[in-house]
């Protein structure tokens, strides 16, 4: 706060204070009417209940605050006594004790006992004065069982006592004193306050705290002598800046420190100098907290000062936007409401002649103050935005966000209204509805594309299955983009068909289909559309997913056709064993029905396979039936593996391939890794230890080796980076240590391969140059996989599983579906929609958090991972599945 502008300090820097001697009897007018106050107390203090009771305190305190505003007082002590009375003590000038010229009584007596008397009724005594209605302390006196005033003035102390407004003990001098100020003690009259005469600490604390905020440097003490006793102190050197900080203490603020200024502007209409004091902060919430005051009174209903402030804020910030971001159209600029999101502000004006309006008299009515505040805020804020472009941008950015949110909310509300109470029977556009009215047996298929939608409509069981085609794609030839999205009308139709309504209207009991099945092409586009639809459900209808109503269809990716040779034996039919295994592994717990669909047709068997992994497994299993692997290691006799050995070899190689990829992600070529295998004991490197500056990479085979290298490096004053330690910094490290976690397993696989009589030399991959020499021939190849009459060469052991698949695939007709559209209605029914045969994956909420993450990547919130993702997953549809 030290760097904030100095807040207005009425205590330290009075606005042209009069000399103390000027405040005397001549400035007091005398009016009468204590009896009137007691007869109609509500007219003066609002009511005779809790609010009116506390009002008495405020009236007395306001007199002291006036002294502070005028610059004569710095302290106000308020004490609640156990007998129900209350004392207000200030260190001001003290109420004058000289004789009032008109009524021939001491001024203090006039002030306290004659209604309407008091400095504030004449402009002369105070420039600006608080007091809710300016009724003055004489009203308090009139409504008190007793009141005692002590005045410390001119080195002497005086005392006077009243009962119900009437003097019971005339003013008398009670001695010498070094103090200055006024002390007023009073006890509310139970005849007036019949309901309660008990002061509430919290109520007083709130108001006194507020007064301390509004009058920077004013030190207020609140003591409660009742019960256990309690003392609170309020002193805010930075006034309303401290107030704004307090209001946004629990939130993240946008500005390093609040914007603050105070300005005084002359106004004939308001009877003198108007003081405008404003503090502004922004936080990251969506609500606004703007508190306004006029003459220390909370203007809860707002008024002209608030409108002037709002108008200046919007005009100034949009003016800056207009100058600095010229490409923004007028209608794209934030509105006043947008600038109010997250706004925290305190506006305090001090006016010689305030006009309060409204139901509770808490709305400022002075029409000129609107313009004054607008000018003052506009002037200061224009200078501020010019000097603080970074923070200005933050505010504008926040308001633009608010604007987007406001427009989105409007669109959402329109959509919710449009989709409300549309009934299934009412003909929902594009929905091919089911005949049954029982939602429990009805299924809604959301189908990618009109053409597939048409096929699905033909294929379906019209009694229970409804079809809703979603285009999901738009081509933009001009921008040369292919966009996947759900259009406004598609979203609306989907919500209408599902029947639950949306947002607060959402009602699971109205669900029209107890299975909602997403059916998309088994390609990347299809997976993107599926992700869009799933994300929509997850975000807007999470109960559908929680209650297990959403499913993903599994249309086939491959159709394989093969001939049945002989009845009963079926030698050419894919291996029954392998098939079961594949189906078992590939199945999701939530899946229903078999993983593949088979059908026999005129001596041929057709089989549908839903994903690449399963296809590969199937072809591999097929190839393993009767495959032989010939290994011709250089300078060694040829070795032939058959039967179980081939299966074992393929398993080992498949696992080795996976582990090889892990090694390669650490930036080490697998061939080179293997080349470092220690001949003596077959151990592989334990870690990659690399000295980036010298490019050295010593071989380490054990934990101890690593420790030694690290130890030595540290002794040499080098800094070591461990890939496994998220806290260590790679940048600038002298030694990089990357562990190979699967070294033991790789070593075991190599031993197992040797156990099969396989030369590990065959694991090496030929260099790229050799590859370009053209097709590898069966005659030249070091490795050949044979099955029946088929032969497939391989250049490295690592290619053996693929070669086994290739020989397995020979003689089988493989058709890869690009999309649902390539299937006819029969095929689609049998493979994907027939409840007795199809596979449906049930979507669970846990899957959705992952889908949501993928969605975020696809939405391009971060550009880099998006490309990585697409590269890694193109064609790998199953990963996007729930």
């Amino acid at each position, binding site marked *: 706060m030290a760097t904030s502008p100095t807040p207005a300090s009425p205590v330290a820097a009075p606005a042209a204070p009069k000399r103390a001697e000027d405040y005397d009897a001549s400035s007091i007018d005398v009016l009468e009417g204590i009896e009137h106050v007691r007869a109609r107390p509500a007219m003066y203090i609002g009511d005779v209940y809790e609010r009116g009771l506390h009002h008495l305190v405020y009236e007395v305190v306001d007199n002291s605050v006036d002294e502070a505003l005028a610059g004569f007082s710095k302290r106000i002590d308020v004490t609640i006594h156990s007998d129900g009375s209350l004392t207000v003590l200030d260190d001001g000038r003290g109420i004058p004790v000289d004789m009032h010229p008109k009524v021939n009584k001491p001024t203090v007596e006039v002030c306290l006992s004659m209604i309407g008397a008091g400095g504030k009724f004449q402009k002369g005594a105070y420039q600006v004065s608080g007091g809710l209605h300016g009724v003055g302390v004489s009203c308090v006196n009139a409504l008190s069982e007793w009141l005692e005033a002590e005045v410390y003035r001119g080195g002497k102390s005086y005392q006077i006592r009243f009962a119900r407004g009437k003097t019971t003990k005339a003013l008398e001098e009670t001695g010498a004193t070094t103090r200055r100020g006024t002390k007023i003690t009073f006890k509310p009259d139970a005849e007036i306050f019949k309901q309660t005469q008990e002061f509430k600490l919290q109520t007083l604390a709130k108001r006194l705290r507020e007064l301390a905020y509004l009058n920077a440097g004013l030190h207020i003490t609140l003591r409660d002598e009742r019960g256990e006793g309690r003392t609170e102190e309020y002193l805010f050197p930075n006034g309303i800046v401290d107030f704004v900080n307090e209001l946004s203490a629990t939130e993240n603020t946008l500005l390093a420190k609040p914007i603050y200024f105070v300005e005084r502007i002359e106004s004939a209409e308001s009877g003198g100098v108007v003081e405008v004091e404003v503090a502004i902060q922004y936080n990251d919430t*969506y609500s606004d907290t703007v508190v306004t005051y006029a003459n220390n009174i909370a203007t809860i209903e707002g008024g002209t000062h608030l409108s002037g402030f709002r108008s200046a804020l919007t005009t100034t910030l949009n003016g800056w936007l207009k100058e600095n971001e010229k490409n923004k159209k007028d209608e794209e600029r934030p509105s006043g409401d947008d600038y109010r999101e997250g706004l925290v502000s305190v506006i305090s004006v001090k006016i010689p002649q305030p006009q309060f309006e409204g139901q509770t008299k808490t709305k400022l009515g002075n029409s000129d103050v609107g313009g004054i505040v607008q000018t003052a805020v506009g002037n200061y804020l224009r200078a501020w935005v010019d000097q603080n472009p970074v923070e200005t941008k933050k505010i504008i950015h926040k308001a633009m966000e608010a604007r*987007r*949110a406001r*427009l*989105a*909310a*409007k*669109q*959402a*509300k*329109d*959509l*919710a209204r449009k989709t409300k109470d549309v009934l299934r029977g009412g003909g929902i556009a594009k929905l091919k509805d089911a005949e049954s009215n029982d939602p429990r047996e009805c299924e809604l298929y959301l189908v990618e*594309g*009109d*053409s*597939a939608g048409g096929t699905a409509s033909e294929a379906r069981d019209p009694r229970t299955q409804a079809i809703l085609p979603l*285009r999901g*794609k*738009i*081509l*933009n*030839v*001009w*921008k*040369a*983009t*292919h*966009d*996947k*999205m*759900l*259009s*406004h009308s598609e*979203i*609306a139709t989907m919500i209408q068909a599902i029947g639950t309504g*949306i*947002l*607060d209207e959402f009602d699971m009991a109205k669900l029209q289909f107890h299975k909602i099945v997403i059916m998309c092409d088994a390609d990347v586009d299809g997976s*993107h559309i599926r*992700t*869009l639809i799933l*994300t*929509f459900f*997850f*975000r*807007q209808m*999470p109960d559908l997913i929680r209650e297990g109503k959403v499913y993903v269809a599994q249309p086939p990716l491959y159709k394989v056709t093969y001939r049945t040779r002989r009845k009963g034996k079926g030698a050419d039919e894919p291996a029954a064993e392998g098939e079961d295994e594949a189906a078992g592994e590939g199945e999701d717990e939530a899946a229903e029905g078999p993983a593949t669909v088979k059908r026999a047709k005129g001596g041929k068997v057709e089989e549908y396979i839903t994903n690449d992994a399963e296809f590969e497994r199937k072809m591999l299993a097929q190839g393993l039936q009767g495959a032989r692997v010939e290994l011709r290691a250089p300078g060694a006799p040829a070795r032939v593996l058959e039967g179980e050995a081939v299966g074992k070899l393929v398993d080992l190689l498949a696992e080795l391939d996976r582990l090889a990829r892990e090694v390669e992600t650490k930036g080490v070529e697998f061939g080179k890794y293997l080349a470092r295998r220690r001949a003596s004991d077959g151990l592989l490197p334990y870690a990659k230890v690399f000295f980036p500056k010298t490019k050295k990479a010593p071989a380490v085979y054990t934990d101890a080796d690593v420790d030694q290298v690290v130890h030595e490096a540290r002794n040499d004053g080098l800094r070591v980076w461990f890939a496994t330690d998220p806290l260590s910094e790679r940048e600038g490290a002298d030694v990089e240590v990357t562990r190979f976690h699967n070294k033991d397993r790789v070593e075991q696989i190599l031993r197992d391969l040797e156990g099969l009589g396989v030369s590990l030399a065959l694991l090496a991959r030929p260099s790229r140059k050799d590859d370009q020499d053209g097709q590898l021939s069966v005659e030249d190849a070091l490795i050949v996989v044979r099955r029946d009459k088929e032969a497939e060469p391989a250049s490295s052991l690592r290619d053996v599983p693929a070669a086994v698949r290739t020989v397995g695939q020979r003689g089988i007709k493989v058709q890869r579906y690009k999309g649902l*559209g390539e299937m006819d209605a029969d095929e689609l029914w049998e493979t994907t929609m027939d409840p007795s045969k199809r596979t449906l994956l049930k979507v669970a909420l*846990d899957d959705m*958090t*992952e889908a*949501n993450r993928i*969605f*975020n990547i*696809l*939405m391009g919130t971060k550009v880099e991972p998006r490309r990585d993702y*697409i590269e890694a997953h193109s064609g790998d549809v199953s990963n996007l599945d729930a």
Partner: protein
Amino acid sequence: MSERDAAPWTCPTCARAAPREGKAFPFCSPRCRLIDLGRWAGGDYKVSRALEPDDLEEAARDGLPVEGLERFGPFDPEP
């Protein structure tokens, strides 16, 4: 999986924490849910990739909407 479950969920709209047991889950508040629905309704959620020749054939076959064609004149998939 357990690691991800333990991590606090963040609201898709404002990226603030959104309790899993919250009424507006996966959002932090009904307001953020409303904004998200508005974005769906406004077609803000879009996955784009470069146009490929096959796409135009598919568009002709499936009657997919094609934007920007007016700049090129009538579309004929088979030249």
